[in-house]
Each structure stands twice: as structure tokens, then as C-alpha cells.
């Protein structure tokens, strides 16, 4: 609702953002699609012509493909489970009246602000190192044999590092959601004689449903492209090669651009499937 004059002014003011994002989306996307149908090896002959769907077939039939899918699923699934479960518990805890709530909140949120390369490096060296890491000391203290975390249980280690980074995000969002719960609802349930466990199960948890979905969707999008944590810790060795890391290696390390691009198209499709669900939720909120 506005006048013609303000509508045309509005279109002008929106144009730069729209044009830039359109270019940012379309140009690389079309190039990736283009390369994905070519045999293209920049260091070994360059453009060797069109090969149809060969790259797509080769990408999924390579021996590295299925392990990378399973590594991706383990990382995404593991981190999601840990962050959502612990996030709900932490949010419930932070919602209780305590002394120094503000400071505790800050302590819990802090990991989110640590750049991924730093957290990966700190965990790798100062905690998970089998000789000098803090965990090794702890294990020895209890008389156990220290574990070489990143070689013996590499996937779990990465899940742990990434969970530590994303737990604050889940906690913060779930806490916001809990705080928006109408206390009269809880009191009504209390009047109806619901014990605390049931109050949590039938009132708090359903109220959190939406926030949990948002956490899961947003984290999934970021987790599908976890990069720095793997780059810094294992470089994709010991079965920690995720789908995106595999694509990265195909493109930049082995310089097989065609093959990598086909992988990229798979990754784009995968991310879009998740994105559609997220957009639905965000879109619904937009109407309200």
C-alpha cells in the first residue's frame, strides 16, 4: 500500500541487492553445471571435451563416495543429536533463577564466537594430543591408556569439536523459545495436576518443537559444509572425508574440475532439499 511514486523509488533501491545476489547465484552455478559435463583437468590438458553424465556416474561410483556420505551423515547426525539434547537441557537450566545468570549465559555462548580454525587447533593439540593433551593427562590420572583421538576415533573427535562450537547456538535459540512460553500455561497444567516430567513432555517440549526444527535445519545447512575443522585436524584422513571435503579435494587438490563440479551439483541438490523445509518455516513466519 503506497503511492506509485514510492513504489518506483522502492524498486530502484532494491535493484543493487537483487542484481548482485542474482549474479552471485547464477554465474557460478551455471559454470559449475557447465564444467560438470566436461572432462576438465586444468593441469593435465585442460578442457578435454564434453562427456555427458560421465562425471556424475564416476563421482558416485568412486570408492571414496560412500564412505564420504557416511562420514557426512555421522557428523551431521551426531552433532545435531548432541546439540539439540544438551541444548534443551542447558536452556532449561539457564531458564531457572540462579545467581549470576548473565555471566553463566556468556560462558555458555562463548564457544560460538571462536573462529573454527582456532577451536579445531586448540582441541587437536591441547586436548586431544595423545602425549601432551589434557585428555591424555586425565586418562593417565585415572590409570587408563591415553587415546590418540584423531587417529583412533577421528569421527567422534570431530563430532565433539563441532558440537562444542554449535551447542551455544542451539542453547541460545532454545532458551529464547523457552522464555517465550507463557507461564500461565505451565501454571494451568500444574493446577490440572500434571507432574513436572509430564509438564515438560506435554507442554514445554511441544512449545519448543518449532525452535528445535529451526535449529536442526539451520545447523544442517552449516554442518553439511563443515570445512575448517577437518582441514585443520585430519585433512580428510582416517575416514573423516565428508562429501564437501571430497569435492574440495577433487577440485583443488587433484584438479579434476569436471568431477568435482559434478560432486558440487550433488551437494547443491542436497542442500536445497534441506533448504526447502527451512524456507517453508521461515516463510510461514513471514505471514504472521
Amino acid at each position: 500500500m503506497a503511492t506509485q511514486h514510492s513504489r518506483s523509488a522502492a524498486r530502484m533501491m532494491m535493484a543493487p541487492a537483487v542484481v548482485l545476489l542474482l549474479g552471485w547465484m547464477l554465474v557460478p552455478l551455471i559454470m559449475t553445471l557447465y564444467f560438470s559435463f566436461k572432462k576438465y583437468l586444468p593441469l593435465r590438458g585442460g578442457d578435454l571435451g564434453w562427456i555427458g553424465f560421465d562425471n556424475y556416474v564416476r563421482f558416485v561410483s568412486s570408492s571414496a563416495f560412500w564412505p564420504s556420505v557416511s562420514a557426512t551423515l555421522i557428523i551431521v547426525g551426531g552433532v545435531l543429536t548432541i546439540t539439540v539434547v544438551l541444548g534443551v537441557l542447558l536452556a532449561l537450566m539457564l531458564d531457572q533463577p540462579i545467581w549470576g545468570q548473565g555471566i553463566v549465559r556468556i560462558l555458555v555462548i562463548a564457544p560460538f564466537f571462536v573462529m573454527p580454525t582456532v577451536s579445531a587447533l586448540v582441541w587437536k593439540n591441547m586436548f586431544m594430543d595423545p602425549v601432551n593433551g589434557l585428555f591424555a593427562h586425565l586418562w593417565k590420572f585415572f590409570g587408563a591408556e591415553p587415546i590418540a583421538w584423531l587417529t583412533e576415533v577421528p569421527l567422534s573427535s570431530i563430532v565433539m569439536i563441532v558440537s562444542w562450537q554449535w551447542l551455544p547456538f542451539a542453547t541460545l535459540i532454545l532458551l529464547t523459545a523457552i522464555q517465550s512460553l507463557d507461564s500461565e500455561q505451565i501454571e494451568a497444567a500444574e493446577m490440572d495436576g500434571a507432574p513436572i516430567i509430564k509438564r515438560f513432555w506435554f507442554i514445554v517440549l511441544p512449545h519448543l518443537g518449532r525452535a528445535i526444527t529451526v535449529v536442526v535445519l539451520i545447523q544442517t545447512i552449516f554442518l553439511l559444509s563443515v570445512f575448517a575443522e577437518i582441514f585443520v585436524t585430519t585433512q580428510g584422513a582416517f575416514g573423516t572425508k565428508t562429501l564437501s571435503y571430497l569435492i574440495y579435494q577433487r577440485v583443488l587438490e587433484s584438479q579434476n574440475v569436471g568431477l568435482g563440479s559434478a560432486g558440487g551439483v550433488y551437494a547443491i541438490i542436497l542442500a536445497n532439499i534441506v533448504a526447502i523445509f527451512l524456507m517453508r518455516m521461515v516463510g510461514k513466519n513471514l505471514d504472521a
Partner: protein
Amino acid sequence: MARQVTSKRKALNTVLAWGIGLLIFFPILWTILTSFKTEAQAINDPPIFLFFDWTLENYQVVQERSNYGRFLWNSVIIAGGSTLLGTAIAIPAAWSMAFVPSKRTKDILLWMLSTKMLPAVGVLYPIYLLFIRMGILDTRVGLVVVIMLINLPIIIWMLYTYFKEIPGEILEAARMDGASLKEEVLYVLTPMAVPGIASTILLNIILAWNEAFWTLNLTAAKAAPLTSFIASYSSPEGLFYAKLSAASTMAIAPILILGWFSQKQLVRGLTFGAVK
């Protein structure tokens, strides 16, 4: 819940919450502590928690040896530049969508968001190639542009949700009161939107500062920011805990402080307004 709780229960909750809070914060605390130890103390067995000889030597060494200042400066330019450029482009766009919505506004907003979800690795090579062709590989300009583009949807969204809360009637009142478009934006909209714009800028500086895919892949020696500087410590010869800790502390300190200021706005920014 504004209900009274017995102080015994509150004390119990407090102890539990502080314990867990400190546990989560511990890796950061440990890094900061280690940065003040000597290398020998840093790997002492058993680990020393507080009673060591505090020293600033590591900070000096990191400064001198690896030219920390240049990486820091790159980070500042890339995070600050991309945020300011993005905000300058986003303010008019968010203004139009919030105050002159059309039937397509919602679709445009969702589409913008969808560009944010494009997996970076899927378009890595094209961007890499374009950067080489345009001669902006390993330059700050190139990174400012890329990081501005990946964060632009978030900036627009955050500003949009803030602007949306300013009632359109107030702007119409200004129009009725004889304000021109310029006066309306200058005297009415901007003063009302300052808190929102400020927290948008803050959050985006944080995101840009910590971005670690494009900064690792599109820079080498010249334009590398702190993310790459830290990654260079992952090679075994750089393995000195105290120095690693000092470098890490310097890399995260500025953003940790900014982050604490912006924590209230975080939720909304990171969920595109889906959770408030």
C-alpha cells in the same frame, strides 16, 4: 516465570549452572591461561592450572615472528569492509521491502535467503577461476566482495525484521507533516532504526571475522586474515602450545568481546527472524 523459588533450590541451581558453564568455557579459559605460560610449563606433566610464572613472552614472539599485525589488519579490513559495504547495499533494499511491500516481496526475501544456502564447495572452482581471471585472487578486495555477498542475505533479513517493527504509520505521519523522502529517512527512520542497524553490523562483523572457507581457499600470503594465520599453526613445526595459545587468544579476543555485546540480537539474526 516470576515465581519465588526457595533459596536452597536456587543455590543448588546456581552451583550446577556455574559448573556446566565453566566446563563449556574451559577450552577458551585453558587457551588464555596457556598463552601466559612458558613452553615448558605449557606441556608440563601434570598440567599446571594457575600457579605458573606468568609471562608475556609468547605474545611478543608471535608478533615478531609471524607478522601478526598484517593478518589482523587483513581481518579488520575484510570483516569491516564487507559488513559496511553489505549494510550500505542492504539498507535501501530492506527499506523498500519493509515499507513498500508488494506481492513479490516475500518471494524475493526467501530467494535471497536461498542464495545463502548454496554450498560454498559447489561453486568453489568457478569463483576460484573468476578470481584468477579478474586478478583478485589473494587480494583483500576479492575477499571483501565474496564475504559481503555470502552475508548480504543475512544483513538484509536482519534489517528487514528491524524495519518491519517500525510502524509504517509513523513514516506516513512524517509525510503528512511535510517531510520529504530524504527528511523522512534522515529524521524519522534512521534514528528509530539505529539500534537495529548497529546490532546487524555487529553480528555480521562476527560472522565475517570467523568465515573460514573462502578465506582459506582464496588467499595465500598477501590477503590472508587471522583464520588462515591460525591454520598455518596446524603444521607440526608450529607446534608450540604457549605460542599457539597466544596467537589464538589474539585472534578470538576482539570478537569474543563484540560477541558478548551482541548476544541478545544473535538469535534473531541467525534464525532469520524465525525465532524471536
